[in-house]
Structure formats: C-alpha cells, structure tokens
C-alpha cells in the first residue's frame, strides 16, 4: 500500500487564473471600482477584476461551496480564492459579467462588499458548533453583528476599515488583532474529575498554571485554589479531566483597538473595555448594542483614514471612556503580573 501524506500542497502556480499567472509580480496599482469590486492593474495595463463575498461564520456546507464553484465556472473561468478574513473572492471575473455575478450572489443571499473603508467579513471560531472549551457562541455573535452592520459591509462610509474578530475562549484566536474583538470569558473554577485524572500528566497540568493555583491531591488527582485562579483555561486545555463552563456565569468581554499593520502606531493588541456581558442567544442583543455604541462614537469622532486604535491614541483613553459612555471600573485593570505596567506614569491628563 502506498504511504500516506508527504504530498504538501499543490504547486503555487497551479491554481492561478491565467492573467495572474502571466503577470505574477508585475502589478502596479489597484482601485476599488465599487464596494466589493477590486480592479488590479499591471505595469503594461492589463486588468484583473475581483469580486469579494461575505461568507457565513465558521461553517459552510458543501452544497453552498459547490454552488460557488458553479458561479466561478460561469463568471471567472473556474477560479476563486479564500482570503485571510475567510471571505470568498472570485478572481479574474469577466468585466461585463460583474453585475450579473453580484445579482446571482444576491439571490442566493450572499452580500458583495467588505473592501476599503467598510465592515470586513467577521472572523469566528466554531464554538458551540464543535468545541469543548467555549464560554460563548462566536458564530452566533458574528451572524448578529453581520446583520447589524450589513449596510456598512455593502458601502464604504466608515472612517477606516472595521475588522471584528470573535473568539469563544481565552485561546483568543484572532480577537485581539481586530479593531473590535469579542472574547469568551469563563468565571467558574475549573471542575476536576478525580477518577479521570489518571489519563492526564499531572506535572504538565500543574506547570501550566500561571498563578500556581494547582497542587497535587491524593495519588493521582489535583485540586485548584479558588483564591488564586484567574480563569485562564490553561489547565483545561491540556487535561481531559478538568472541565470548565457554567451556563450561569459564562459570557464574553469586548476588546477594542487591535491592529496588525505597521502604519500609524504600529502593531497593537486590543484592550478590554467591557469586561463582561452575559450570554443571550440567539439574538445577542447586548453584544450588538455594545459594539454599535463603540462604532457609532468612532464614526462620529474619527478623522478620515483613522482606525479605532489610531483614533484612541489621538483622543486618549480618558476621552474614549467619556465619549462612549463606558464606565471605568476595577475590572479594566490587569489583576495579574502585567498590572503595574499599565499604571499611568505621566501627568499629561485630559479632563
């Protein structure tokens, strides 16, 4: 029998549309024809049109993907790509057929947009669909926010682009890298199932805890000191016998101001501005309300091209709290070793 694996990935030239294969590395500029439609131009004037489509969060059915394949055959010679934000791009669309493609996608319920200064495709992990760790349901929140910012996705009226990432537990996926991030928060003490602890490596579990809250108990098991636990979830990730999650106390936090690019103030991780909101499926009203409040303040106050982080850097955190009406509490201050780093050391206040 042949050996499995060792294949790698298809050669990178294999899946490229002809115009891209021909002009690989020879692109000169690009423009946004209209929201969701990009035109890339080469040095010798050749053009490549791309149509960007918002996709459902976390899961997509093979039936839908097969329909997308059919659309790609019809409109773009059978080529499409998945972007870093998991939206779908039909690459090298025949220019005359762009409107027909957008119509076809509209009929199927897929919006075209997410380019330039718009709300980009939200990223979500599978959470309640297929995971054991989540404190909240990312795809549900992503869907609710997608509904709320649907017009912002389809037009480019925001000051700069708005990237919202959603993660359901302290693994955070990409949530701290988005302009707005939503992160699931556990508040219960992890539950140790003593009789199952035999399958875990006790030293690994104990070494995982950043605050030294885990200590040995009996011959095989461990116990967790509730006073020291900071609910990071590090132990639950590596041990099948330590469980976390409680329907009454699980919820999510909202972070703002992450960005990856090196322009402006450089790459920054987001900061948590709303420490806890309880779960409320399937409408997620509180999540939508909180995010809308922040986005609307930013929209009103920011200069053109200013992303949320750059806006906050200009107006300062005291003005951010004042303008958004979010109340500053003890829960905004790091209670772990990084706390003192965030204490203010200058007197250049803005009142």
């Amino acid at each position, binding site marked *: 029998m042949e*050996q499995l*694996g*060792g*294949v*790698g*990935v*298809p050669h*990178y030239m*294999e*899946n*490229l549309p002809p115009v*891209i294969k021909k002009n*690989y*590395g020879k692109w000169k500029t690009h423009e946004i024809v209209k929201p969701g439609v990009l035109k*890339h131009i080469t040095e010798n004037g050749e053009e490549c049109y*791309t149509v960007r489509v918002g*996709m*459902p969060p*976390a*899961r997509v*059915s*093979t039936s*839908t*993907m097969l329909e997308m*394949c059919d659309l790609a055959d019809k409109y773009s010679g059978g*080529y499409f*790509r*998945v972007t*870093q934000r998991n939206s*779908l791009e039909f690459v090298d669309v025949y220019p005359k057929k762009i409107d027909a493609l957008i119509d076809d996608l509209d009929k199927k319920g897929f919006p075209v947009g997410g380019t330039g200064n718009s709300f980009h495709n939200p990223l979500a992990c*599978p*959470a*309640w*669909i*297929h*995971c*054991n760790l989540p404190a909240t*349901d990312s795809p*549900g929140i992503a*869907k609710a926010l997608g*509904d709320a910012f*649907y017009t912002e996705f389809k037009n480019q009226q925001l000051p700069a682009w708005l990237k919202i990432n959603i993660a359901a537990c302290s693994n*955070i996926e*990409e949530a*701290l890298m988005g302009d707005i991030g939503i992160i699931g928060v556990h508040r219960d003490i992890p539950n140790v199932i003593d009789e199952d602890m035999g399958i875990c490596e006790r030293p690994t579990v104990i070494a*995982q805890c950043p605050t030294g809250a885990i200590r040995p108990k009996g011959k095989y098991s461990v116990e967790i000191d509730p006073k020291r636990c900071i609910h990071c979830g590090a132990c639950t990730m590596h041990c*099948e016998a330590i469980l976390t*999650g409680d*329907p009454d106390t*699980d919820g999510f936090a909202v972070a703002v101001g992450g960005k*990856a690019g*090196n*322009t*402006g*103030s450089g*790459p920054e991780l987001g900061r948590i501005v709303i420490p806890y909101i309880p*779960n409320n*499926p*399937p409408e997620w009203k509180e999540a939508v309300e909180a995010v809308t409040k922040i986005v609307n303040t930013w929209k009103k106050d920011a200069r053109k*091209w200013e992303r949320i982080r750059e806006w906050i850097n200009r107006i300062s955190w005291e003005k951010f709290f004042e303008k958004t009406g979010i109340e500053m509490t003890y829960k905004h201050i790091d209670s772990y070793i990084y706390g003192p780093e965030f204490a203010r050391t200058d007197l250049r206040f803005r009142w």
Partner: protein
Amino acid sequence: MGSKTPLVDKLCKGPWPSHGKELKRTRYPILMYENAMKEKITQWGHGGMSAVPGLGSGSIARASKRPDIIKESPLMRVLGACGGFYTSDAFRKICKIADTYGDGSLHVHTTNSNIEICGFKDDEGLENATRELNKIGYDVGSAGDAIRNIPDCIGAARCENALIDAMGLRYFMMIRYIDDIQYPRFPYKIKTKISGCPNECSKAQLHADVGIIGVFRDAPKVGQKELKEWVDKGGNIEDVCKNCPSDALSWDGARLMIDKDACMHCMYCINRVPAIRPGDERGVAITIGGKMKGKYGPMKGKVLVPFIKAIPPDYKELTEVYDRIVEVYDEHGKKKERIGDMIHRVGWDKVLEWCGVTPTAQNVISPRRNIFYHWKEEELRR
C-alpha cells in the same frame, strides 16, 4: 407542532449569510447546536489531537456530552492551497470527499488557512479521505505539537506592495517541512506565518510563533511626475505628509522629499499614494514568540532578525535561521510551552544568544534600565 429547532431557525433570519442555514443543509447533528443555545453551554466533550492512521497528525478528535444525539465527531485538517487560490474542479473533489466521508460541513479556512472537513464516522474514513486527497495533490496535517500549516498572504500574485514572493516561499517551506507538519515532535505547536510586507495581512507578528515578514531597507521610491499628476487629480499629499508616523515626508508644491534616515518603512505613504513605491533593497524580518493562547497570555512577536535576504530557490539564509529557532525551541522549551512563554521564562538575551544572533538596536525597544544582571561564570572574577 412547531419546529424541532426554534433557536437555530431564528439564526436563519436576517440578511447576513447564516451558519444555521448552512448547517441545516448538511448532515451535521443540528440538535447539538440547538441544545447548546437552549442550555447556554456547549454540548461537545473533550477533543484533542488524534492522528489519521498511518500519519502523525491531521485530525482532531471530538467527544460528545450527548451520546443520545451523536457519539463523537472527529474532523480533518486539509492544508489550504497557496494564497487561498482554488480551481472549481479541485474544490468540487474536496467537497465530494467531505460528502462521502464526513457530514458535509466545511470550515473554509480556519485562522491558520486550513480547510476543515467535519463529522467523520470512523478512522477508516479518515484514512480513505487522506488517500483521495493525496491523489488530487492536497494533504492533511497541522494538528498537535507539530509545525503547523504555514499560511501566506497573496503576495506577488495580485498585490503591488509585495516585497517578497510570499506564495513561492510558502510552497517552498511546505514542501521542505512537510514531515514536521505531519509528525508532531515538539514541546508544543509552532505556528509560522508569512506576510509579504509590513502591512501584515496574515498577522505574522502577532499571531505566529515564527513570523516571516517582507521588509525593505532603503528609502521608498517616488515617481515625481506621477505624483504631480495624482496631486493635480485631487490627491491630498499634505494630509499624507502630516500623518507620516516618522515625519519623514515634505512636499514643496512640486516635489516630494523623503528623509531617508527618518523613514521607518511602515508602508503608510505607499498605501495611500500610488506614485510612491517600496525601495529595492528587500528581504525578510523574522519575529518569534507571538501568540494568543498559553500560560502567560497574549504576546506580540519579538524581532529576532530585523533583515535577512530571502533568495529563491533555496532560501538558504532564511531556512538556516528557521532551523535554528526550531532547534532552540526543541531543546529548551518545556512541555506545552509556547515560544513566547519560553522567552518570558528564560529571557530575551538568552534566546538571542542561543539563536546565534548578535544583538542590534533593532532587537530591542530600548536598552535595559535594570542594573541587576546575570553575569556569566567566566566574567565573575574573585
């Protein structure tokens, strides 16, 4: 008699594409999701790395807390194609495999650019699916304590800012390290990402243990004639000059001057003005220790090598550094400790030394303020 899944039905409303609708088009056990929303807690049990029989990784196990609905539901990670480009023919075949062996639901591109095929029935299915994927040139992997999939940005394929051939470099690395991607042997996962320029579309510095980012060293090139045309058409060059983070631009009404020493190559003006292009002295920067999860929380990647040449076809300088990082981590990392946590534990100076990097001012924000220092044994004289 109402619907069996009232909450999922609510999710199907609204203009945005709904995952509820998608799940209902597959054989996914929708009651698991319905109950999760009803009880506000996940219905799935512990998962973890399991292996495709005959391989070291490639699939994730997932137990269920509701054996009355479904007993288990493993999924398989397929390494996504370079730049995310697919042909409809190849993707149809992937869909067919997902329909045959899985429940028909896909995660089209996880954050690490894998395609996940969900809901396998048994190990035999995993093995057969892998065999069929191999036949069409795709492969599985990227699970467990291995080098993970190496996602890239679109790079030179369709981007004028690309400073390196991101897709070519990714293909080279995937082929070179495919054994390490499929056979876990490290203390914990090693995520690697490639970005073509400091705009960081693939978030290599923030999200990857090893980030490889295209950079340039000389001043940006200005096409003065094209720039004048752009300004005449209504381009706001004063605004660009004002917002340059290093204050390196000056515009006298006809020519744009760039202060070469002040420029910090952040791509701001290049993004805004089509007539400004990146310089010609190009290479990559390598950052290590970026991560989100793990013991000490989220960390940004730290600059290990600020500039190194990346020359195809063998990328000799780059792979030397990469191999060294992997060796250092393999030797010094503790079990289930990410590179970022290791740096936190042993110190930045040690890691630079182990990796054979002579420190430069580009490796630090500032020199230390702390007078305490761990002098070496040969430096201690009695």
